[in-house]
């Protein structure tokens, strides 16, 4: 391989040089160590020595003397003896290019952002009269205080945190005075959203009827002792409502977007008041269960609701809801629909009242009376079918032998 004589880089940042003169001529023999040419660099003039032994061949395209050329430009070749006959300096690909493919490979530009970039300030450039410390600005934002007209107590009138806090206390409107802001989160937030949606999207109507629960109370009181647990009123009601829904399937439906779903099963949810809020565990397949089964299940569910250990499945797939405020002396109320269900039954208190037993004989007596409040969604069902459903519940309560 012939050795290429290139314009050398003499100084660290030399980029061009001048070929001053050839000290050997084209075709001259050259020994290792001989000086072959003189180069002028940016700082000094130097004679270049050959490391190789051979013949100097200068191609026709080699730069003329005195011209300024780039570092790496081909000047000539030192051709070893054995290749002298076969090598043609002008035929070589490099002969046509004034600068040969330079081996100078620059290091890739890998500038690394090594210095940790410090977080840039988020300070907005507001126009302001008094200067304000960054901390005060932050606190003002947190407390929603307009600091622009505040008098600063800091040096040179700077508004400081203390000024903001003072202003926040004074700025508080009177209807908020003494009130404590409780952030909305968790169950409360869910309930809030649900209730709002119900009121917004449904067409609720509430029907009420007064029911004579005397016989039901007797049935309950006389529940056989050998049963494990005496059912609560709500267990009897669940069973009654389940039976009524079975006969009036139009009330066992749900609204979904643009169509109505008629449910195969009757799953009744019982609203339970817990210290976290209202929770509605569901007893599924009510018509297929006995009162004892319902009773056992409901007491477990209520306990689990109180201790916040209900599973998700126990809260799902309800088709109807019963809610009872009777224990708080409420007679009549307008329960909000438990979306997406068609209807919800509100149960008021059972209270002994003087009622007319027989109008003909003007007989009155004391009966245990209670009011049922049924809210239904008029989008799914009309007033008359809903009323008939409620009427059936009344019947079943007043003649409980029909159930079970």
């Amino acid at each position: 391989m012939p050795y290429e004589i290139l314009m050398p880089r003499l100084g660290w940042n030399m980029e061009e040089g001048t070929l001053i003169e050839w000290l050997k001529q084209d075709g001259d023999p050259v020994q290792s160590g001989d000086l072959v040419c003189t180069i002028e660099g940016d700082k000094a003039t130097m004679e270049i020595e050959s490391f190789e032994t051979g013949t100097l061949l200068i191609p026709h395209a080699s730069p003329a003397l005195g011209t300024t050329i780039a570092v790496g430009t081909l000047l000539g070749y030192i051709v070893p003896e054995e290749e002298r006959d076969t090598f043609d300096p002008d035929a070589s690909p490099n002969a046509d290019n004034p600068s040969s493919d330079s081996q100078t490979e620059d290091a890739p530009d890998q500038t690394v952002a090594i210095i940790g970039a410090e977080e840039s300030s988020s300070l907005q450039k507001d126009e302001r009269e008094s200067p304000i410390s960054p901390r005060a600005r932050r606190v003002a934002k947190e407390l929603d205080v307009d600091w622009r007209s505040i008098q600063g107590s800091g040096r040179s009138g700077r508004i400081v945190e203390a000024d903001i806090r003072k202003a926040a206390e004074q700025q508080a409107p009177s209807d908020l005075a003494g009130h404590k802001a409780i952030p909305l989160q968790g169950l409360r937030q869910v309930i809030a959203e649900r209730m709002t949606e119900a009121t917004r999207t449904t067409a609720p109507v509430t029907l009420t009827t007064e029911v004579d629960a005397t016989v039901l109370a007797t049935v309950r009181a006389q529940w056989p002792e050998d049963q494990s647990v005496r059912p609560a009123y709500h267990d009897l009601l669940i069973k009654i409502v389940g039976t009524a829904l079975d006969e009036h399937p139009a009330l066992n439906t749900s609204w979904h977007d643009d169509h109505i779903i008629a449910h195969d099963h009757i799953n009744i949810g019982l609203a339970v008041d817990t210290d976290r809020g209202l929770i509605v565990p569901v007893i599924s397949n009510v018509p297929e269960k006995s009162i004892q089964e319902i009773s056992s299940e409901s007491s477990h569910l209520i306990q689990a609701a109180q201790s916040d250990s209900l599973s998700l499945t126990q809260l799902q797939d309800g088709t109807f809801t019963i809610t009872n405020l009777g224990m708080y002396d409420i007679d009549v109320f307008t329960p909000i629909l438990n979306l997406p269900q068609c209807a919800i039954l509100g149960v008021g208190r059972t209270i002994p009242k003087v009622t007319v037993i027989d109008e003909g004989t003007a007989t009155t007596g004391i009966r245990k009376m209670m009011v049922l409040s049924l809210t239904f969604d008029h989008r799914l069902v009309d007033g008359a079918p809903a009323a008939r459903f409620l009427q059936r519940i009344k019947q079943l309560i007043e003649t409980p032998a029909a159930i079970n």
Partner: protein
Amino acid sequence: MREITFTEATLEALSDAMAEDPSIFVVGEGIGERGGNFKTTLGLYDKYGPMRLCDTPICERGFIGMCTGAAMAGARPIVDFMFMDFILDGMGELINQTAKMQYMSNGRLRMPMILRGCIGIGNSAATHHSGSYYPIFAHIPGFHVALPSNPADAKGLFTTALKSDDPVFFMEHKLLLNHKGPVPEGEYAVPFGQAAVVREGTDATIVALSVMVYHTLEAAETFAGEGISLEVIDPRTVAPLDVDTILQSVHKTGRLLIVDETFMPCGIGAEIAAQVTARGFDDLDAPIARLNGAHVPTPYSPALEHAIVPNKDTIIQAIRDLLAE
């Protein structure tokens, strides 16, 4: 808990380490038979002999370079400068060789070297025996710089230095050497880069270095009597520097003062201020303040010496100014 002096605490750590590791040796002027000008190696010569307690001629560059080479060859040298001022003769060795050796060798050479000596202004030692210079060393990549303010931290930080494979400057303020304090028995280490909150408070954060911790705590007592609550932080090492603890404190208090005996320009306070401004900007209720020793060589006369270094009264005034911002 027993109370021992700062120097006794480090001597305990050193003696225990030398008993376990035969490659640890100490080099310096007077640290051999004499046991060190400040008793830093008291009693060790009789135990370990002249190769391990090596008295040197006065040639700091020479023995710094020698210890650098010894560390490269696998030993664990401790250079005891007596006064840190003397280290300056060896700056070339320290910065071009000691600091760079691990990096240049791509981690194949280690540099387990401790450079210890006393720093600080006091006792009219004058300008060649009062230097600290630790901001310079904290600036250089490759160094750790420890600055204990009490005997317990001194022992713990020295232990960490003894185990470290990096070069560590161990700066002992001359006014603290005979200071007594509670020091746990047995081996324990205080990690580098972990500041100590030496007093909790809510109204301002004061970062203090070395002996300034004491003056600052005294000032804090004065303010406590006025119902003002100050948080005092001792960084304990300035390289690495625990700015996170300072940021947490400023988040709480909104105000920051750094008290440091060394010169103000380009100092540790400047570094802390820059970092807190960058990373805790929205927590600042006032500009960050610095209280430093005067930017002058240290004069001799007690009247002059007193004028150029922070003390309890000037610290109190600086805190008042900060609170008024």
